[in-house]
């Protein structure tokens, strides 16, 4: 049995059932379903405006879904109190499309910020400095610890954002367009980094991307979000061989 077969038999860490979300008359999600298994890399692909970002924001409670259930590590987040949701968020890392580093803070302070908020997750003797350095070392940017975000390149910002995501040692990492806006070489470095992180920390990853190279390299499974629903799910090889014109459109090039 190979690794990918193992994944399908492992525990579901994140599940969305019949998710609906509308903005006025614009029905973005119309009964979306998905499951993410422990240790899996699930890539979600869809056209711009298809609701990928809305879905991922509903997932972490940044947006409220109209209906449906979102279960993260056996917790239905639509029913959690704000306090319980904040605690659960320590186990969910989120890499934003534009990195979203705090402009007014140094790299060190950016990484310390979530640590201070979730100090209960670590022992009292945990050395903040060591945790920050470990996270930065894992993305190869220990030397940038005292720089401001404005002094970093796009690729470096993405790496620091990844380090900030990693510092709380999350069980699930959500990537929103991790390679967008980066040159092909830097994008490739980020993809390799994501793979390394997945291997090192055995995290489950949900990756939203338009980058088919990224999807091909990193995905265990892919999900196509079309017309607000989970239109097709399968491996890259399976989907790329599909005859369905809607699926084929994604693999044209």
């Amino acid at each position: 049995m190979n690794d990918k077969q193992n994944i399908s038999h492992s525990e579901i860490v994140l599940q969305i059932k019949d998710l609906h979300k509308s903005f006025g008359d614009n029905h973005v999600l119309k009964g979306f379903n998905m499951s993410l298994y422990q240790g899996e890399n699930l890539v979600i692909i869809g056209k711009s405006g298809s609701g990928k970002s809305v879905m991922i924001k509903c997932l972490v409670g940044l947006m409220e879904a109209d209906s449906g259930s979102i279960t993260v590590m056996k917790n239905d987040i639509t029913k959690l109190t704000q306090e319980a949701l904040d605690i659960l968020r320590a186990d969910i890392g989120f890499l934003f499309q534009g990195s979203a580093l705090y402009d007014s803070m140094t790299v060190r302070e950016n990484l310390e910020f979530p640590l201070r908020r979730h100090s209960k997750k670590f022992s009292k003797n945990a050395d903040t400095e060591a945790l920050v350095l470990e996270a930065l070392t894992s993305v190869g940017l220990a030397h940038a610890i005292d720089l401001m975000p404005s002094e970093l390149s796009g690729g470096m910002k993405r790496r620091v954002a990844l380090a900030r995501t990693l510092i709380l040692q999350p069980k699930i990492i959500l990537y929103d367009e991790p390679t967008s806006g980066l040159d092909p070489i830097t994008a490739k470095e980020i993809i390799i980094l994501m793979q390394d992180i997945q291997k090192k920390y055995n995290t489950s990853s949900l990756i939203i991307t338009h980058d088919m190279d990224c999807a091909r390299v990193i995905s265990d499974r892919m999900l196509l979000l079309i017309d607000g629903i989970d239109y097709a799910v399968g491996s890259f090889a399976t989907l790329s061989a599909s005859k369905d014109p809607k699926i084929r459109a994604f693999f044209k090039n």
Partner: protein
Amino acid sequence: MSGISKIKDRLKAFLIELGDLSYFTGRFFREVFKRPFEIKELLGQCYNMGNRSLLLVGITCFIIGLVLDLQTRPTLMEFGAVSWMPSMVSISIVREIGPIITALVCAGRIGSGIGAELGSMRVTEQIDAMEVSGTNPFKYLVVTRVLAVTLMLPLLVIIGDAIALFGSFLVENLKGNVSFTLYFNQVFDSIEFGDIIPAIIKSSFFGLAIGIVGCYKGYYCAKGTEGVGKAANSAVVVSSLLLFIIDFIAVFVTDIFYDL
């Protein structure tokens, strides 16, 4: 018909905005007493807003003091009442000119700064990142900033008043050979607590208005760089307008107390 429907739409949009702003203000008062208290961020914002506005407030108030004295002097001389100058200037500055000028300067300096900062944080998803990391961004960003302006504005007004009075003294000293002691003796003889306390309370409300409007505009900024510009701009316009409304109400209420 289209003209009427345009007016209706604008009125509706205005009322919705007013409702949202009221809700935002209510949320501020709900959150301000809840834990955790972001003391470090609050102190940082107090320093940022107070210290960095001081020079601008100081220069503006100094010039206002000079100009007020220079403009009023000839008229008072005509009536042989130039000796009333310190009393007149001090009451004008302490009761009205000092607070409103300082507040207007701060609406431009602090209000636009908050609007642009929070707007840019919203657009670049930094506020979302904060929320995802388990921090309440309203408490960390909004409550601290609004509190900082509310606390710092009265202090800036006191310093601004003193500088404006010093400006006025310089004119009196140069034109009328009035000594420092004589000028400020007259100033303190004519000012009462009834002049200072309402001005300080009014300044706190000015600060609250600047903070709330700046934060509201930035926090709910539309996506894109244009949205950030609009947030900064409308933070200044709306808060400046609010300052005059609050000023009118404050003077009206103070007047009632004076009559009692």
